[in-house]
């Protein structure tokens, strides 16, 4: 399994300056081709964990290995290592406004490949094919402030996919999306997973967990891993979910396929 490991976290701790820690003693291995969901209430440290995985911040204690190499600030200052790492790992931010900083959709999608020094013709080809794949043709020249929330998320995904990363990290991807776009997103993630991508999603949206996870990691409000396991087992463990404040007393698990009018059921056709 050793070759297969994408990320390995050993006793990772994180705190900002003198503030209380946002992650405590995290031990975690993520394997290539996995679908992982990081569950946790607001402020449990999901974002911090994802930022550490993407090499944007660095643990204050413990160590992180990415593709078998140490992921440190020093290593990322090395142009070759950094370029390799950025090609392999893509991060879709919760706030699409921060992610979409280019003047229009086309430039946004071209940004990543350009930074990674792909030749001009390949950049153009990639942008065009991603636009086609996600059906963004009408938005091609549109500036980001004229996109709806759902369109912004689509473009954000396109802008990361154009790098063609092996690992895709998504921070609260369904936040603020209407149900239809949520469904679209889940389908895209399933497709990408089938294409061999490793997908790491942080969310507190329990409804989508089963579709986008083989394995669930639950972060508690005191910033440690509270549980880890198959989605079915995790979602059944009401007591634990209550304890980490992910559900209220009145929560009932969503049963897929119960109401045929509901959109959820048809996802299952895609996954085999």
């Amino acid at each position: 399994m050793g070759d297969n490991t994408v990320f390995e976290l050993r006793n990772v701790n994180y705190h900002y300056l003198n503030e209380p820690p946002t992650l405590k003693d995290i031990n975690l291995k993520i394997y290539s081709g996995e679908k992982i969901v990081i569950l946790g209430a607001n402020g449990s440290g999901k974002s911090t964990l994802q930022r550490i995985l993407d090499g944007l911040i660095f643990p204050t204690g413990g160590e992180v290995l990415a593709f078998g190499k140490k992921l440190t600030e020093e290593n990322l200052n090395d142009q070759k290592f950094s370029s390799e790492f950025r090609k392999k790992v893509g991060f879709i931010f919760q706030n699409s406004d921060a992610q979409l900083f280019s003047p229009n959709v086309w430039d946004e999608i071209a940004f990543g490949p350009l930074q990674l020094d792909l030749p001009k013709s390949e950049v153009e080809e990639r942008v065009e094919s991603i636009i086609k794949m996600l059906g963004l043709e009408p938005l091609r020249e549109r500036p980001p402030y004229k996109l709806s929330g759902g369109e912004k998320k689509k473009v954000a995904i396109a802008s990361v996919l154009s790098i063609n990363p092996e690992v895709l990290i998504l921070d609260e991807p369904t936040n603020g999306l209407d149900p239809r776009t949520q469904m679209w997103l889940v389908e895209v993630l399933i497709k990408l997973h089938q294409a061999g991508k490793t997908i790491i999603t942080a969310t507190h949206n329990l409804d989508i967990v089963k579709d986008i996870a083989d394995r669930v990691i639950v972060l508690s409000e005191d910033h440690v891993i509270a549980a880890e396991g198959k989605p079915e087992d995790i979602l059944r463990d009401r007591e634990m979910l209550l304890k980490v404040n992910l559900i209220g007393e009145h929560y009932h698990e969503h049963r897929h396929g119960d109401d045929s009018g509901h959109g959820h059921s048809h996802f299952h056709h895609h996954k085999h």
Partner: protein
Amino acid sequence: MHIPDGFLSPQTWGTLGLGMIPVWIASAIKTARNLKIKQVPLLSLGAAFTFVIMMFNIPLPNGTTLHPAGAALVAVILGPWAAVIGVTIALVIQALFFGDGGLMAIGANSFNMAFVMPFVAYYVYRMISGSSAVTSSRRWIAAAVAAYISVNVSALLTAVELGIQPMLYHTADGRALFFPYALSQTVPAITIAHLLFGGIVEAVVTAMVVIYFQKVNQPMLELYPHKSEKVHVQSGLNLKKVWAAIGGLILLSPLGVLATGSVWGEWSTEEFQNMLGYVPEGISKAPGSKLNFFPDYSVPGWAANFTGTAAGYILSAVVGLLLIFTAIYIFNRFQTKGDRVNG
């Protein structure tokens, strides 16, 4: 205070524009070193913020509203060099997209509001606030005084730039070619308005925001100057070269004006110096007497007949054409070459 196109003579906006080039280069180098990799998003948001401040309308006692220029505030928070870039970019966007201030006058407007204003504001602020604590009331008082003084200095410059136009450029019979009022009229009109209103609005807004940060978000007042002295020592040699280059550019910039002048047949060197020499004298003159300043003023090139100089113009047009396409060609080459190297 945004000067539109058409108010200033090409010589004035040309000179100020050329003068701004070394300032822009220096600010790019300075901020690149201080802000490092974060410069692009930070400067962009700084510039966007400057633009947005100019949209805040402040109610005045007489029922009207006024908006602050914002340069002082940006200089106090992000430092003068970042303010140069931030305000310049806000001005470019205002001119390009919202028709506020002229395209050709960008150099002049930048000189007044993006260069002089933030630097005056920053140094006044430093001088008064000294080494006082972030929460000290000396900080906001310093910010208020800095804003008041800097906006007035900037307004005075605007008044001078506009006021020298009729002295330098008018026809033989006293017809103004550009801005029609003399210094004796522009200086009081513009400065009084800013001493009474503009300066106070700027001071109140700047001070109130500083007070707000003192209460809510103190790190915002400690963004500049940066505490990394080490960086300065390391790149000291580089800085010297930059200053030498800037000095060279400054020395060359009047030559550029003379060169353009002679292309258009507007001024001889002698006349140009003559006029510069006359400027201070004009300030003391009464409005009525300035019209006879250059009684025999005539533009040498323009007096000649059309056919005589047509050949010269056609030649310069051909050169212009060649220059334009060469520039575009070179850019395309750079682009493709860069791609090849990178790929």
